[in-house]
């Protein structure tokens, strides 16, 4: 049943996001066109068009990224907390499957949005001076530096990748938990959702500050005192960040799950 939920969630979100991505690419193409034309022909009008399309493009770039996040939050609210919830919560599926379907689709679109953003920037010509051959040569040069801890480097990159993938999950789950808890009350549901989001953010900041302070003292004290850097220090730091993200994901997932199971309160 998770597969079917994913199919419909993808369909509901793709119908908005795909045209938006297309629009962004068209703007990037126009941006590139006027950039090339104004480089070849000395016409003031072309310069003006280039500036306008560049401005529109970079505004759209920020807009698409914001839209993809807002759409995922809106989908959770609209599909589960309003009248549509009467259908979703009476389907023969579990609450876990419902949450995972929203979460996995949100994660997928986050990755796609980042890829589309990069693609659009490359297309618009902002990176036209960047040669892939030069970039690859630079990577190879770094890689062949004598004494480089290759194993650790791969490990650090892998840990960074895991962290980058976990980060949208924990953010999205915090939104879900705030909306679910806010809507479990009889009145002022949206206002309470904002209040809970604010409360959760403050809580995460406080706990995060203590955790980083502890991490810095526990992991970095040797480095500071003895001034000896070991490859284990970044590992320990990144792994502690991954663990913090996982704890946040688990806490917000369980809050959302428990609220939707035990305190669901559709109007």
């Amino acid at each position, binding site marked *: 049943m998770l597969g*079917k939920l994913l199919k419909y969630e993808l369909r509901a979100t793709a119908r908005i996001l795909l045209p938006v991505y297309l629009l962004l690419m068209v703007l990037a193409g126009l941006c590139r066109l006027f950039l090339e034309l104004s480089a070849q022909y000395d016409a003031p009008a072309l310069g003006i068009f280039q500036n306008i399309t560049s401005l529109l493009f970079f505004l759209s770039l920020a807009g698409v990224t914001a839209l993809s996040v807002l759409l995922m939050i809106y989908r959770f609210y609209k599909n589960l907390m309003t009248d549509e919830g009467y259908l979703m919560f*009476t389907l023969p599926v579990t609450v876990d499957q419902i949450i995972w379907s929203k979460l996995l689709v949100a994660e997928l679109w986050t990755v796609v949005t980042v890829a589309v953003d990069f693609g659009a920037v490359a297309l618009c010509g902002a990176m036209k001076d960047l040669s892939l051959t030069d970039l690859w040569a630079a990577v190879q040069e770094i890689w062949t530096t004598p004494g480089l801890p290759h194993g650790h480097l791969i490990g650090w990159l892998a840990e960074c990748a895991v962290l980058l993938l976990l980060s949208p999950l924990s953010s999205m789950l915090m939104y879900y938990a705030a909306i679910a808890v806010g809507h479990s009350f009889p009145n002022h549901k949206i206002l309470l959702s904002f209040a809970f989001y604010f409360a959760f953010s403050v809580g995460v900041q406080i706990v995060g500050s203590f955790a980083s302070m502890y991490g810095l003292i526990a992991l970095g004290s040797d480095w500071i005192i003895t001034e000896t850097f070991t490859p284990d220090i970044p590992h320990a730091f990144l792994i502690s960040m991954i663990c913090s993200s996982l704890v946040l994901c688990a806490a917000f997932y369980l809050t959302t799950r428990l609220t939707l199971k035990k305190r669901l309160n559709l109007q």
Partner: protein
Amino acid sequence: MALLECKQLTKYYGSTPALDHVDLAVEPGRIVGLLGPNGSGKTTLLKIANGLLVPTSGTLTIDGTAPGADTKKIVSYLPERTYLSRWMNVVQLLDFFCDFYPDFDRDTAERMLTTLEISPDQRIRQMSKGTQEKVQLILVMSRRAKLFLLDEPIGGVDPATRDYIIRTILTNYNSDASVVISTHLIADVENVLDDVIFINKGHVALQSSVADIRAEKNCSVDELFREVFRYVG
């Protein structure tokens, strides 16, 4: 075994009781009217049966099981709200119901849509509220479910559609299935009911068969309802 059974079922909203120690049972093959004035607890009872609310105390079981993913396979629920996604068209909704409910009979649904002259390509957002309610009812009644829970199915439609809906309910359930119709429009459904449950302020005021009411009280369900729920003033 009763298809739907409540034992001492209680639900409080804050300090206000919506259901107060309710005991009732719905046997297979019956059409039951869940009758009561607005705010009597009918919707709360149906929401608990569908897992949309958790009781404060007591139990509700469907075919011996507490509401969950398994009971939702055998229950077809029509809420009083329109729950259809407004961006979908009718065909997409039929696909959706086919995907999630193995007991969904697409041919029956398409036949009913044709009868009511609803175009399969029409989007929900282009429909009037009445048409949206008809589509929702068609989707719900096209399942071969064991238990139909219908919350105010005839509340917002014209009398001609009301007759069609009642005929649809009668012709679209099999003899082993039960139908619970929550309504306060008793005269319209009285003739199709086997049993009635009167509910008032969270209490079951009466549970009886319609035949017994007519034989023992010598009155119609509508008359008895007016008698039981008469405001003294």
